[in-house]
Each structure stands twice: as C-alpha cells, then as structure tokens.
C-alpha cells in the first residue's frame, strides 16, 4: 500500500535555515545541510527547501546548498523560491534536486509549468499555492502570491486545475490562514483540492501536534503532510510523529535502516 509521506520544510535565507510565523519575522534556526541530514536520519520521507534569499547572488548560494544536500541525503527533495525560468529549474535539478516548485512565478507566467513539464517531466514540477479564505471567490479561497503579501484575482480551485492541465506533477497547498499558527491544517481547503485534482496533494501550514497530521491525511485526503515548526523547535521528532500516525491507522514508512547498518 502506498504510504502517506511526511515532508520536512526548510526555509533557507542566505544559506541558513529560518522559520517564520505567517510569513513574517523569520528567525535563523540552523545550517540547512546539517538539519537535512538529521531529518533524513530520523526518517523524513522527503525534504523541501524554500529559498527566501532576496539578494542577487541567491542562485549561486542555493545551488551550493542543494549540491551539499544531495551528497548527504538519499530521499527525494524539492527546491522552491525564486524559480522563474526553465534554466532556474535545470540548475536545481542538475545540482541534485528531484523536484522544483514554482509559486508566484507560475501565477505571473503560467507557461513555466508547461515548459518545465516538457523539459523534465511532470514528476519534477511541483506547484506551490498560497491560499487565503475568501467567500467572494467561487471555491471560497483566493490565490495569493509574494509570500502572502499580494492578492490575485485567481480562484484557488480554478488555478490548480489549470496548473494540472499544464502539467504540474504535484501541488503543495499552503494555507496562509493556518501557516505558522500550529493550530492545525486547513482541512476543508485541502480536501477540496484533493478531491478535484488527479495529482498528489501535499498539505502545508498549521501543523502543531500529531493529531493535525492525522486529520489532514485522513479527513483532508492529503497524500502527504508538510511540517516545519513541529520538528524545528516544536519538540517533536519524526519517529514520534510517525508512531502517532501509525497508531491512528495511517500507513507510514517506519522501518528506515538495516539492522546492521
């Protein structure tokens, strides 16, 4: 049986890992490569790196981080943030990433999804979407960009459906309302998207306790759950979270190392 994946997200600025609340006030929490190795050894099923560097040198810095990570961890990982062209995608994939994610740039230039899927295959192209609850929109959610700072005219469901047509292979759905709150994922929003697209849906934003993951993987119908605060400084380890999920009947990967390894 296909297992539910736990993804650990690391926000990287100037080569260091940070974590913010509702996309503001980021604080440094460590070296991304060291943290990636720790989460890999604990049994993270996948890692996600978001580059939030503002400077012009960002691509070079991130490329080096990605190369170092690729040499250390042997599970898939995705890189997002500042990916605005097929060349940016290629640079990250050649540096060792399995997937690249596009968010704001895809809204501004949707063609990048088609181009990435054609060049590298859909399985490499992840769409990140930031959704804000808004009753004025047909699906009840509005797409926002620039890390939540800019509202768009796009409806969440219409956008993910369009992106799927264009060739996205997976969607990471981040609720701005829930992000960083540790109050739980946006279940209705996750379920809405899960039931309306044919590609895997990763729920993001709001995880604080294991029960939140159980809810979003079961009731929200997500294929995977993304966590950050819970393990960066929330006192949880991945084996603990997976034990809680298994106890709730959610299939997860728990045997991660040969007995003699």
């Amino acid at each position: 049986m296909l297992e539910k994946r736990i993804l650990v997200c690391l926000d990287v600025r100037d080569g260091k890992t940070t974590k913010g609340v509702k996309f503001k006030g980021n604080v440094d929490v460590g070296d991304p490569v060291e943290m990636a190795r720790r989460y890999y050894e604990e049994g993270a099923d996948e890692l996600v790196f978001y580059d939030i560097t503002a400077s012009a040198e960002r691509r070079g810095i991130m490329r080096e981080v990605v190369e170092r990570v690729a040499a250390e961890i042997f599970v898939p990982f995705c890189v997002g943030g500042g990916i605005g062209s097929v060349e940016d995608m290629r640079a990250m994939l050649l540096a060792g990433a399995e997937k690249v994610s596009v968010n704001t740039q895809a809204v501004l230039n949707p063609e990048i999804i088609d181009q990435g899927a054609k060049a590298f295959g859909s399985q490499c192209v992840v769409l990140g979407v930031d959704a804000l609850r808004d009753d004025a929109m047909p699906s009840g959610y509005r797409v926002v960009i620039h890390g939540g700072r800019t509202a768009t005219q796009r409806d969440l469901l219409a956008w993910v459906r369009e992106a799927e047509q264009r060739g996205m292979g997976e969607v990471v759905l981040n609720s701005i309302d829930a992000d960083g709150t540790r109050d739980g994922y946006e279940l209705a929003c996750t379920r809405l998207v899960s039931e309306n697209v044919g590609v895997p849906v990763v729920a993001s934003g709001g995880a604080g306790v294991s029960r939140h993951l159980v809810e979003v993987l079961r009731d929200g119908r997500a294929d995977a759950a993304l966590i950050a605060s819970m393990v960066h400084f929330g006192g949880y380890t991945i084996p603990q979270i997976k034990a809680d999920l298994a106890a709730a009947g959610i299939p997860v990967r728990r045997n991660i190392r040969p007995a003699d390894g």
Partner: protein
Amino acid sequence: MMDVAIVNYEAGNLRSVETALRRLGYEYRIATRPEEVLRADKVLFPGVGDARAVMEVLGRSGVAAALRERHAAGGSILGICVGAQVVLERSEENSASCLGLVPGTARRLPGGDGLKVPHMGWNQVRYREGHWLFAGIPQDTSFYFVHSYYPDPADRSTVLADTEYGVSFASGLERDNLTAVQFHPEKSGEFGLRLLSNYLAH
C-alpha cells in the same frame, strides 16, 4: 579496481545514482558508448522519461545492441525505473519497441478509485525470499516509486518482487544475470543504498 558503468542516454539525470555510488565508495564511469557497456564489470541502467525516447537514443548510440549482447553473454545489469521497463519486449508508452531481455510488456497503471497516476511515493516491496539483491532488507520494506507504467513480464519465473498499487505488479525482475527494479534505490534511503551495495558486491 572494479569497472562500474552508469548508462547515460542524454535525457536522464544521473546525479542521484552518482551520489549514491560515491557514498558507497565506488568509482564509476558514465557510459555513452557500446564498448563501455560491454567491458564493464557492473552496469547500472537507470531510466527517466519516455520509453520510446529512451529506446531511440539507445538505438542510435548502439548501446541497445551492446546491452543485448552483454545480457546474452551473461553480463550483469541492474535496471532502474524506466530501465526496468525497457528491458521488456515492448512498452505501451508510445507503443515503444524495447530491448527484449525479459519477455513481457510495460503497461500503463490503471489508477482510478482514488489511486493517482503517477504512482508517487513510498510503497512496500515483497521479494523472492532469500534473493541476494535484497540481503539485509526485511520483507515489505518501502522504496520510493515514481512511475506511470509498470513491468508486466510474460513469465512469472522472471518476477523478483511484487508491489500493490491498484494492481499487483512486478516491482523487481530477474532473468539470467539481469536484475531490475521499478523503484528508485538511489532515493530510497538506507535500504536503497543497501540494495545498490548488494548489486555491486554480488
């Protein structure tokens, strides 16, 4: 020193297989020419992309013929992902005619009933008990899969491992000195590295 070759055919990103071999302490060459495929002690044959496109590149470079010759002579090969599909006779993906090292067809995953295609993520592998490729790996260990087509060998005796995803499919194949896995050992954590290490040490 052992001569380990990774078959290259332009389209595929070999980086993750390379880093896995480096971690295991093996030197390797990226093989693009038939003679490199023929003389290597071990041949890793990863695959990414469209089966038909893969076969076209392999045919043009002469590597397809080299792989057939190597297999017929009893040479060792490990196919990975699309590499486990194009060793069959044909693929439903763009009606590709394939290498024919193992009788059978690569078929499209049926999906439906909440099962998404591609099959992406960690899924359990049940292998033929006692097989050397899985030494030190417990039954039903999870490996990382990303694929839309699956190997459907004609002869059950060539099935090395099974996985369930709507259908029960052959996630591992074996014929003579060829072994192949549909999942990505290079992205399947420490058990994946163990499988690669088992292949190289065999």
